[in-house]
């Protein structure tokens, strides 16, 4: 088998505190549009990075500051790539619009009692979800004129909610928490009646400690979660979306990847090519691939490579870029963002 290597393309400096998260703009990286991503930090700012098509290197195009008064914990581009949502420890979520290269804060979402931990857009860009240390998950509807109206406040987690993620094709929301569970939320009626339809926890082979992040495969019939319990877990469902008779097909445990990590796994992301990356407190990045067809009774996924000392400190976030040949970006407590290329 060919030797693959994760090659450091660039180390991006600029943030003056730990970098918590980043998000690639989904509308970039194809049709000649240069790749763009946003990174957010404990320095209360968000930085916009754009690739130069002539030398493929990234440079900082904008710094979004003087809006959030505390750490910016998470950021997310709308599916069209026109709006950027940023979630902050100052209890607000800001919405930024790209107006000719300048980013303007066009709306501020208030409602959470304290630190907002994560923000996510649904596939059509009509709904936004946020979650917080106040244990609640909020769903917002995008209205004309950059207005956002709260649709529902969901309280079912018993602890800090770490991340929210919409299903890649359906309006089903997933949240994971310090209470060790993943919860699935759906609007079963037609009148903003959002309910927790499933809880993936210890009784269903779930995690035994904080669930930090989750990510879907492209078709949306599998998701992977990572945890403080040093494992990655893959979950699957028979069919996505609403069933003909109403209700949803439940998710079930497919396998647990254990023994690969010795420290907390903070981040996991599934590429469209089927490779998932993990970022952990041991400063390493690991890549895994599907192994289900190579041998009977073998592990369903195998370690493709481990990049030791990818950063000088904890890796908080990893994400694959859009485009033909995806790049991997990683954000770390060492205050840098690194861009990686998977080469043979």
């Amino acid at each position, binding site marked *: 088998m060919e030797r693959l290597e994760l090659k450091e393309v660039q180390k991006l400096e600029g943030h003056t505190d730990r970098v918590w998260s980043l998000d690639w703009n989904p509308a970039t990286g194809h049709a000649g549009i240069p790749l763009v991503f946003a990174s957010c930090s404990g320095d209360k700012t968000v930085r916009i990075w754009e690739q130069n098509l002539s030398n493929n290197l990234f440079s900082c195009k904008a710094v979004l500051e003087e809006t959030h008064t505390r750490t910016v914990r998470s950021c997310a581009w709308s599916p069209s790539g026109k709006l950027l949502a940023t979630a902050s420890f100052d209890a607000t979520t800001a919405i930024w619009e790209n107006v000719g290269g300048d980013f303007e804060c066009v709306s501020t979402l*208030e*409602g959470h009692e304290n630190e907002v931990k994560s923000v996510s857009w649904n596939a059509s860009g009509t709904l936004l979800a946020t979650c917080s240390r106040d244990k609640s998950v*909020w769903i917002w*509807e995008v209205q004309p004129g950059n207005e956002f*109206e709260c*649709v*529902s*406040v969901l309280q079912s987690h018993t602890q800090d909610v770490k991340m929210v993620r919409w299903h890649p094709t359906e309006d089903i929301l997933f949240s994971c928490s310090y209470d060790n569970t993943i919860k699935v939320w759906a609007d079963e009626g037609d009148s903003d009646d959002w309910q927790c339809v499933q809880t993936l926890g210890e009784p269903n082979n779930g995690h035994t400690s904080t669930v930090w992040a989750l990510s879907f495969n492209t078709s949306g019939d599998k998701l992977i979660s990572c945890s403080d319990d040093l494992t990655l877990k893959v979950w699957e469902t028979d069919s996505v979306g609403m069933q003909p008779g109403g209700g949803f097909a439940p998710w079930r445990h497919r396998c647990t990847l254990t023994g690969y990590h010795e420290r907390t796994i903070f981040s996991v992301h599934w590429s469209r090519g089927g490779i998932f990356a993990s970022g952990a407190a041991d400063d390493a990045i690991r890549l895994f691939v599907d192994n289900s067809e190579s041998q009977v009774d073998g592990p369903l996924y195998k370690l493709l490579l481990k990049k030791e000392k990818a950063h000088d400190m904890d890796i908080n976030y990893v994400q694959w870029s859009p485009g033909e040949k995806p790049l991997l970006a990683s954000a770390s407590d060492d205050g840098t963002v690194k861009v990686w290329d998977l080469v043979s």
Partner: protein
Amino acid sequence: MDDPFDSSVNLEETHLKEGYDEGYSDGLVAGKEEGKQVGLKVGFEVGEELGFYSGCIHIWTSAIQIDPTCFSSRAKMAITQMQDLIHKYPLMDPEDLQVQEIMDSLRLKFKMLCSSLHVKLHYNGYPAEANDTQF
């Protein structure tokens, strides 16, 4: 067969029993009084919180009557839902299991409405804001 030490052997036990009985009846009285105070306090808190929501709903409903377009249809629905929940609250039956569930729903709906209407209203709760009140 009278044992002269019999009564002194049982002395401790007798006193213990007497003391227990006396303490038990005193405890009943004291506990009842304490329970009354706790009930009074909790009942007051529940009443105050429900009253607070009820007052907000009253104002918002009046505003809708004056200008039916002042709030979004989603906000208007939440106001109606809160109104129904307040009516449904079993005020006179604290042991009804619905009590907590209804209060939780009210609190969530209230948060949502405050966000929708862009108002910063906060029910601070009786114990925190009125600690100078004596009973």
